[in-house]
């Protein structure tokens, strides 16, 4: 997801200027995605360059509102209908860390799992506390954003439980270092 599509979605509601966009963006995501005003203006100028938004005349307060163009609407519709690809997301550092922990001599893998689970659990508690604060219908959009993070954290805890259960039955094979010819060795011979 990009800030770009978020701003297009907000402009679909009606013309807004930079500061308004920032405030409404943060409200819509329940404060889980803080934006700085510089990001908003940079994104707006790129959207304008790509003809997805257009600047309107300055208002009385000197702010310049932007409105979405037909091309912007098409871009937004495409975004809503295209599934998010998992491969676009960054590699999972935690999974890789655990894989290395298993094969690195002297690492207490259970302790790694436990430390992570405690931390993830704390995060989950905090998200839940934020959710518990409000139960108003108007809060639904940002509660769903929070829920997404809640379910992701839960999945991580479940995966860590699974790792721990697998570790009980795990006997590490002897660590080996694969023997590789240094690069270019052949040609020098």
């Amino acid at each position, binding site marked *: 997801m990009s800030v770009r599509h978020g701003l297009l979605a907000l402009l679909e509601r009606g013309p807004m200027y930079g500061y308004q966009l920032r405030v409404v963006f943060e409200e819509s995501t329940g*404060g*889980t*995605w*803080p934006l700085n005003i510089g990001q908003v203006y940079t994104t707006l100028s790129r959207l304008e360059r790509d003809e997805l938004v257009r600047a309107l005349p300055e208002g009385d307060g000197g702010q310049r509102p932007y409105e979405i163009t037909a091309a912007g609407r098409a871009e937004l519709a495409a975004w809503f209908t295209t599934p998010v690809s998992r491969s676009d997301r960054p590699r999972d550092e935690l999974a890789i860390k655990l894989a290395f922990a298993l094969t690195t001599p002297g690492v207490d893998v259970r302790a790694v799992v*436990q430390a992570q*689970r*405690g931390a*993830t*659990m*704390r*995060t*989950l*508690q*905090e*998200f*839940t*506390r*934020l959710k*518990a604060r409000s*139960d108003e219908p108007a809060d639904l959009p940002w509660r769903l954003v929070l829920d997404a993070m*809640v*379910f992701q*954290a*839960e999945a991580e*805890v*479940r995966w860590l*439980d699974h790792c*721990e*259960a697998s570790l009980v039955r795990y006997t590490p094979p002897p660590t080996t270092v694969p023997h590789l010819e240094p690069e270019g060795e052949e040609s020098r011979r």
Partner: protein
Amino acid sequence: MSILELRDVHRVHGHGETAVHALAGVTLTVAAGELVAVMGPSGSGKSTLLNLAGGLDRPSQGEVVVDGTVLGECDRRTLAALRRRRIGYVFQDLNLLASLTAVENVALPLELDGVGVRKARLLAETALSEVDLGDLAERFPDELSGGQQQRVAIARALIGERRLVLADEPTGALDSHTGESVLRLLRSKVDGGAAGVLVTHDARHAAWADRVVFLRDGIIVDTSGPLDEPDALLAQDGAR
């Protein structure tokens, strides 16, 4: 003020070489207004801990104290009275009596304890209103949805002077939305001054607790409490 205290509690099943240490030295305190979740793999001792806390089982070693009373020092009658008056249970299979209406189910523990029928009923009606079921008081359990039945069970668990509620997978059969409303209710009841212990294997449910205790092989291996400032966490996340 602590409502529940487990002091170096052990529970051993069997003898000699075949002995199984279900709990191997657990110390845990739950204060009024505090909800503690207990997580851990199957066989880690979660249910044993809950049964000991509720006076349904006795420790092999160590002490269980509920509201100032050492359970091990009670005779059977005193213990039964304490269980009726001070401790509420919410289980996955709700244990509501099918032949009694919602309000009769909630009033039952009070009546068993000698409270007059009319007074017990008034208290039960109030308890049901507090869980938003005032209008459904005359329904039988099979005329209520799963979520509503669980609310009746929570009302019953916390009626009267009960200060300790013990919940074992209370959201087990419910969909995630209804399950969440049950946890919200449990949370608000605890915020109102009760102490709660919630056994669950579901991290999303455990997250409603103030503290999460991880059990493994009968001992507490980790405890997680919330950070002080949730907003700080979000700011950090966004800055990444």
